[in-house]
């Protein structure tokens, strides 16, 4: 339970934090909620000589929305997102946030941290993929925005440079008639890392039954959170019916690439299928509200 030795830095602004990361490079680790980093430090999985804590960087707290979209500061906690009203589609994200770990963990864990740690089972990633989120990465003097679907590389790895800090997650405004839902399967009812998770967002045409667009994202069944493109594509211009949902779900199960670590690949695929049906069904209900 001993952490390695390091120096602690508490920058007051994002610029200051970026300056530090530019100086330290990969000798430093960023500390936000700490729910992943503290454990990694205790296990000596990482041994930074500098820790840059974002506790005082208020610019990346909180969230707001305008006509273009919703903007989530990377330090927004799972607890805050769980109780936020993000609309009938955005609720896919609050539902996921509400099931992260435990209430204690949710008070600390940040949305930025969940993405940056890049675990295959990161609960908030599939909803963000389903919402077509992009992330804003800041470094000294520069900033880039990229789609979350281009962000993950492999378990624990993403495309960020050592000197970059994730500042914001952008959710583009979705058209009217959209709904989202999140399904998580764990062994217990709390404190669980997902066995399988599915996030679905559906966009309905004016008739309230034809699917204009869909996005289905899967968690914990591939080296990274992933979009089930074929499954989603199979729903375009189709009616929202149990039969069509079932077909899409089977396709999603085929697209999944489970590694058979926590549960067998067979079971994981069966669950992708099940949870996709449930997520699509509930997303459809939400879209129709």
């Amino acid at each position, binding site marked *: 339970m*001993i952490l390695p030795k390091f120096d602690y830095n508490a920058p007051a602004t994002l610029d200051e934090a970026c300056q530090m990361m530019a100086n330290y490079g990969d000798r430093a680790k960023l500390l936000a909620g700490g729910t992943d980093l503290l454990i990694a430090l205790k296990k000596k999985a990482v041994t930074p000589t500098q820790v840059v804590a974002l506790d005082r960087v208020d610019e990346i707290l909180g969230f707001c929305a305008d006509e273009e979209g919703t903007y989530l500061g990377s330090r927004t906690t799972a607890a805050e997102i769980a109780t936020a009203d993000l609309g009938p589609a955005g609720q896919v994200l609050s539902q996921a946030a509400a099931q992260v770990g435990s209430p204690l963990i949710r008070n600390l864990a940040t949305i930025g941290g969940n993405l940056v740690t890049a675990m295959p089972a990161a609960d908030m990633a599939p909803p963000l993929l389903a919402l077509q989120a992009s992330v804003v990465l800041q470094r000294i003097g520069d900033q880039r925005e990229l789609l979350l679907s281009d962000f993950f590389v492999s378990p624990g790895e993403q495309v960020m440079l050592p000197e970059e800090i994730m500042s914001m997650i952008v959710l583009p405004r979705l058209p009217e008639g959209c709904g989202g839902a999140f399904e998580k399967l764990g062994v217990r009812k*709390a404190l669980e*890392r997902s066995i399988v998770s599915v996030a679905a967002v559906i966009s309905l045409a004016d008739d309230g039954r034809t699917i204009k667009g869909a996005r289905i994202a899967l968690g914990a069944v591939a080296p990274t959170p992933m979009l089930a493109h074929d499954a989603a594509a199979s729903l375009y211009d189709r009616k929202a019916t149990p039969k069509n949902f079932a077909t899409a779900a089977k396709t999603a199960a085929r697209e999944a690439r489970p590694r058979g670590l926590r549960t067998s690949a067979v079971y994981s695929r069966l669950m992708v299928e099940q949870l996709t049906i449930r997520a699509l069904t509930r997303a459809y209900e939400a879209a129709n509200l």
Partner: protein
Amino acid sequence: MKKPQFSVLNTRAPRVDAAVKATGKAQYADDLNRSGQLYGAILQSPVAHALIKNIDTSRAERLPGVKAVITAKDVGLTKYGVSPARYDETLFAHDKVRYIGDEIAAVAAVDLDTAQAALDLIRVEYEELPIVLTAAEALAENAPQLHDDYPGNINAEVHQEFGDTAAAFKECDFIHTHKLVNKRQDGGFIEPHACIAEYDHAGRLTLHTSTQVSHYVQRTVAMMTGIPIGRVRVVRPCVGGGFGPKCEATPLEISACFLAIKTGSPVKITYSREQVFLHSRARHQFYHEMTTGFKKDGTIMALAHKCTLDGGAYSSFGIATVYYAGSLLGAPYRLPNMKYDGMRVYTNKPACGAQRGHGGVAARACFEQQLDIIAEELKIDPIELRMKNMMETGDTTCNDLNMSSLGMRECVNAVKKGSAWKKKKGKLPAGKGIGMACGFFVSGAGYPIYRSDTFHSTAEIKVAEDGGTIILRSGIAEIGQGANTMVAMIAAEALGIPLDDVRVDSGDTDYSVDLGAYSSRQTLMSGHATKDAAENIKAQILEVVADKLKMDIKNLDIKEGFIKVKGRKKLDFAKFRDYYRKEHRGWPNLPEGDELSFTEAARMAFLEKGTIVGTGKYKPPILGGKFKGAAVGTSPAYGGSAQVVEVTVDRDTGKITVDAMTDAHDCGLAINKTMVEGQMHGSLSMGLGEALFEEVKFDEKGNLLTPSLGEYRIATALDMPNIETMIIESNEPNGPFGAKEVGEGAIMPTIPAILNAVYDATGVQITELPLTPERVLLALKEAEKEK
């Protein structure tokens, strides 16, 4: 028989230690600090099986801040364990390591960081050996051998037969063979083991430790260190749960003692959660195969039972476990013929020991699941089948266990009614199921772990020289179950004073011998010793009162803090009261009224005799049969439990939700109703966890894959349903005031009740635990295919 009126017992008195725990003031072992203390750390093997070629501690010794480094060459090769006939571990490995986690050295340093850094500087050369990770691998021909003294990796073998099973099977109309396998479990107590050892320069060793068994730890430490036992003191602070794995001396404790002796400084060591998992000494993995024979009217005739236990690298409690796995099926149903062949096998994994319900839990699960299968086959209601075969009070099992009280019928009727069984069985919607099971357990093992005529429990009560309070000092183990409150209530009742006037100080080997908290013994055994001591005090005080006030002692009693008088002659204590009031002139709350208070009587006794001290003792009578292993399973009494569980099974994911649990437990007499219910609740939650989530896993090299409470899943508040509990009181003649156990009997029916409910919900019998969603779903799919 009508229950007597009690003044203190059978109530919901708040626990005597609740306030200190509610305010964060309770001191657990890791909360203790001594000035000048050093911090210990233990070097553990990273490989599962290897010869030790060399240990070089020189660099560690030279690290600034390190005060001592010890290995086998410093502490010797004395063997220890739990059962003396099977002592098979040395404190530190010297020639070979047998599992990942096996201890090799220990360090004491000025702070924990330095101690950990020192471990990294100890160089050990290993020559790796092939490993065996399952019982099957260990038993295979040419398997690598863990212990020279135990060829074939067989740690213990039991072969017993009662009656004549072969003949009985010939008479049976129906014979069924059933198998069940569980997984290795962990105690899951929230407080990791911790201790602090101190050695003074006059040769006395004191160990404060989170233990269930101060007495056994004291003996082991004395044996290992060579310090005369009269100079070894083990003190038990508040303990954050035990459940079995804290029932034996640990390498943590023994290392701390050696380090304290070597450095002359207090040494504090606490296990990390991972080390708790590496230490284990928790529930074994059992492979049960039961062949049971019935008459077509449902009468049970015979049981032939084979069991293999995966025991890990050392014996620990294993010899008792392998016996219990067989012996505890002798009841509560009449079983005239029982054959048991059990074997405990060594594997290169942490050693397994005793855990709540000991060897009886998986065996009971297998048997009760089988009973339901039989019931279905014979078209008899599962409850009726059990009731038909139920033993009665006074019956003796085929293996000589005597049911001096047995409230099993009452328990079954209670849960049948309480759960609305008749309304639900066979009438629940698809995906929902209801199941029931029974179980029972000993109220204390009939014999101590070491061959001895020792009393199992002794207690001392001192009456305060002034004030009318008593202090009860005893070696008992309060580990959360409420033992301190239980003995306080018994003392108060037996003596006749209010509970508030009793103070308990326990767990200190200086006070008295008590074998500790295991085999669910303390209510019956420590309760008896306490009652004995309290009655002794009562007699001493009444003797003085009778003498001083010229009364016949036979007409005197103490109740609710006052001296009660029978007969026409009144107690003339005016003179003494006057004296007492003068002696306490100016004090508030002086005694008044027309009865002599206990406070005054106690003062009277002190003034006459000096300090009044009473002692009590208890040892069970010689119990059980004369056959080998007869000792295990014998007990002065048995607690019994019946349970009904309702589940919902999600057929598409395999996820099980337990919707309701109804449990009835016969505890003889509930000393404290709230505490009895609490033990039932805790047992059920552990049983639910073991049925649905809990599993210790290893990789192919013997590394723990579940070294955390995130991976080893115990039930959270969202996983537990509301539990309805009913207390049955059969008035046990061998128990103090009729009381017997509750701590371990209540877990027995839980796993099979869930298994039976799942079968009821799905029509699929699952015979491997835990019932994870994956296991259930794949079983459902398999069954569908077969159709």
